[in-house]
């Protein structure tokens, strides 16, 4: 094989869906051993493109070549047979089965269990992905579950490994382990097609990048030679405005949480242990940490979905620990949960009805219990206009909106109610860069108007950008908040990994 031989060559790939061209004449190529990034906002066509490579979607036009031979997989099985493997963003694992059984389920002709377990052990040690084949997947962390998926792919000895947003569920330390594995694979000649929103990661890991916008290839570059800001600008196609945090001063203490403990909400769920925090008017407090460490539980106790022990949550000196969501809304404590469909919004209901979900108290959308549909519609329209929600109108069902648009709607619905305290969980999860920037700005503006904002997020860059203080949530314990100014990423990593230890040291 010569030096410039390409593993995968894509020429003029086009795929149209009714009303939208998901991919328009896309061409690029990947060399063996290359780590290639696919960059683009949500809806830029990244998913469609990799689905075509993996045989899940058939292109309307264009050709693909794998190792110089025409490549047009009619289904994923054919793609796998040709040496293309994919790790999806959402894992497809059965929690009640063990690691080896899960791997066997994804194989065409699984070898005997004992042999398979030995192979899993061998591969996982070779690539630095410690994994016990006999453990139940239900007991594994998100990072370990991802390892199962990766090992499942590696068993096929792939030539091209596609990874869709692999680091969104990992801690910084787990990301390091993953990168180590990917570099090793790349050194052995396996090409990796890497999709991520996290520009710093791409700069650290990838050899080349193709940038998609509106289904077209708009640029390609070597990520190491660009700054994260330049990459973001290439993605969005406009100059990137980072959040404006000027013009804020911290005021009186609004919310005090003290000694808040909570038993787990579900069998496998985390509990909250002695969480304490103080929040001042105009302050943005960022709470980092990997999902599943008590984020949902913290939001539930602050929103009022889960009442807590008397005296644990106080608003301006008044104990609100026992109040439900609506009485808290009346007092100005609002929240936007992470799960958009089914928690923050009702999927089958219209945006107008979803405005009623949280807006009744502060926006007077009901009189003596009778719904004022006109007022609800006007409020929904107000949110749609103010937050640039792309939808035909407020009559549309929430599930018809794209994730990013619904997120804008959910955040907008709370922000426009002018809360005194707003708690948001993962405010920009799955939202494209431009929309994420406007959501962040709206949170900062809200704080600028004197509200206190708690942003719970896994995206550390986001927290560093908008938060005044940073605290880490780990296994239900919240570290003492520290000012974000001057905080290094190493220190943050330590807080995330060792919030537990720090707490004990402080005692």
């Amino acid at each position, binding site marked *: 094989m010569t030096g410039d031989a390409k593993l995968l060559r894509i020429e003029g790939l086009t795929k149209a869906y009714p009303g939208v061209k998901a991919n328009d004449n896309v061409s690029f190529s990947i060399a063996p051993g290359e780590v290639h990034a696919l960059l683009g906002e949500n809806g830029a066509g990244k998913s469609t493109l990799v689905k075509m490579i993996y045989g899940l979607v*058939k292109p309307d036009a264009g050709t693909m070549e794998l190792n110089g031979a025409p490549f047009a997989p009619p289904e994923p099985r054919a793609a796998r047979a040709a040496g293309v493997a994919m790790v999806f963003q959402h894992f497809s694992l059965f929690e009640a089965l063990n690691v080896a059984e899960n791997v066997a389920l994804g194989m065409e002709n699984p070898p005997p269990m004992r042999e398979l377990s030995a192979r899993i052990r061998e591969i996982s040690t070779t690539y630095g992905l410690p994994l016990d084949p006999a453990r139940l997947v239900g007991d594994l962390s998100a990072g370990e579950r991802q390892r199962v998926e990766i090992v499942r792919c590696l068993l096929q000895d792939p030539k091209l490994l596609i990874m869709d947003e692999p680091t969104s569920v990992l801690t910084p330390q787990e990301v390091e382990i993953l990168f180590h594995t990917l570099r090793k694979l790349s050194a052995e000649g396996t090409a990796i097609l890497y999709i991520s929103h996290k520009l710093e990661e791409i700069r650290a890991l990838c050899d080349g990048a193709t940038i998609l916008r509106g289904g077209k290839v708009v640029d390609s570059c070597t990520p190491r030679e660009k700054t994260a800001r330049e990459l973001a600008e290439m993605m969005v196609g406009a100059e990137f405005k980072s959040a404006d945090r000027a013009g804020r001063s911290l005021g009186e203490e609004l919310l005090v949480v003290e000694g808040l403990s909570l038993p787990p909400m579900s069998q496998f769920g985390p509990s909250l242990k002695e969480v304490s925090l103080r929040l001042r008017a105009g302050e943005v407090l960022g709470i980092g940490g990997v999902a599943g460490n008590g984020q949902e539980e913290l939001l539930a106790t602050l929103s009022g979905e889960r009442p807590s022990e008397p005296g644990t949550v106080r608003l301006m000196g008044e104990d609100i620990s026992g109040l439900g969501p*609506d009485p808290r*809304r009346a007092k100005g404590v609002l929240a936007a949960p992470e799960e958009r469909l*089914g928690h923050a919004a009702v*999927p*089958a209901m219209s945006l107008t009805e979803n405005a009623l979900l949280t807006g009744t108290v502060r926006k007077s959308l009901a009189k003596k219990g009778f*719904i004022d549909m006109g007022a609800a519609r006007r409020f929904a329209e107000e949110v749609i206009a103010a937050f640039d929600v792309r939808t035909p109108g407020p009559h549309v*069902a929430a*599930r018809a909106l794209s994730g990013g648009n619904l997120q804008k709607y959910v955040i907008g619905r709370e922000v426009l109610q002018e809360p005194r305290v707003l708690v948001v969980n993962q405010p920009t999860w799955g939202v494209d860069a431009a929309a994420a920037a406007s959501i962040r700005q709206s949170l900062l503006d809200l704080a600028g108007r004197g509200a206190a904002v708690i942003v719970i997020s896994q995206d550390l860059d986001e927290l560093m950008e908008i938060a005044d203080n940073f605290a880490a949530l780990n296994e239900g314990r919240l570290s003492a908040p520290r000012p974000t100014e001057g905080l290094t990423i190493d220190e943050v990593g330590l807080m995330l990994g060792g919030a537990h230890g720090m707490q004990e040291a402080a005692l």
Partner: protein
Amino acid sequence: MITLIKRPTPSKTWSWATPIVAILATMIAGGFLFAALGKNPVEAIRVIFWDPLFGPNAAYFRGQLLVKAAPLILIAAGLAVGFRAGIWNIGAEGQYIIGAICGAGLALAVYPAESVWLFPAMVVLGALGGLLWGMIPALLKIWFNTSEILVSLMLVYVAQNLLAYMAFGPMKNPQGFGFPGSRNLQQYASAHNPELIAGTGAHWGVMAAIVAVIATYILMHRHLAGFRIRVAGEAPRAARFAGVNPSRLVMVCLMLSGALAGMAGLFEVAGPNGQITDGFNSGYGFTAIIVAFLGRLHPIGILLAGLLMALTYIGGDMAQLMLQLPAAAIQVFQGMLLFFLLGFDVLTNYRIRIGKGAKA
């Protein structure tokens, strides 16, 4: 190749058209069924759907229509509120029996005193009986997380045995020559639930059914409480986020549907039926579940579905009598209605695409 494509927004047109298409499909498929049994399908359909309303003896049957539809609508209106919230009261039949026992019990206890207050008091007691019977599964669900489906269903059999005990024991007519069954309330002026307009069959239960339809419509579509009930059924976590207390919701839904079922039982025992007897209950509580779904859990839909269901019962009886159709054929026919309804229901949320491009 046929593919179903999920609609982003549920189709309003289809949610209204489905019942009509389902009725037409039932008529066609039922026609084939009757033809296979050697009957003239057109005549059979006419006997079931047309004769009770416009046939030679329609005057009598039209009255029967309201008598049969009223309890179905009254019970289904209550059940639908719970079903919308995802709370499955399957035991309306039991609540219906207990309502009848409680209301009739009062009348039998004070017999033969006459008072204008007796009948209203019976209605209140009937509703209260059904409400308390419905509260049992609610409390068990809240305290021990039991399934309200099982508990409410089991309580039907408890209620049936209680009914038999009452009919043979404490409530037996002392002047009944040893026959089981209570005094006939039709002959007790203060306790009787009479036909209000002669020839229509409209008794107080019909009025109550109409009021229940209007009240549940306002509750579910104009009031915040109804909105929250719908949210709870669609997305329980969102409901909690909106401030719904799940325990209170369970209580309210089971108590409401229980009270309406109990009232239906009282109107029946004090009116068309007249007596507490062993076999007093005739399955209205179970049929109302079908009516609730046939009516898309919407009060107006339930009104129409109750009338339609009553029509197929009366028409079915006539068809058995006049065409010697087997009773099972009528039941199959009624089953088809639900079958087609649920089948066509898919079109509300999905679009059908036929032909190429079906397989990826």
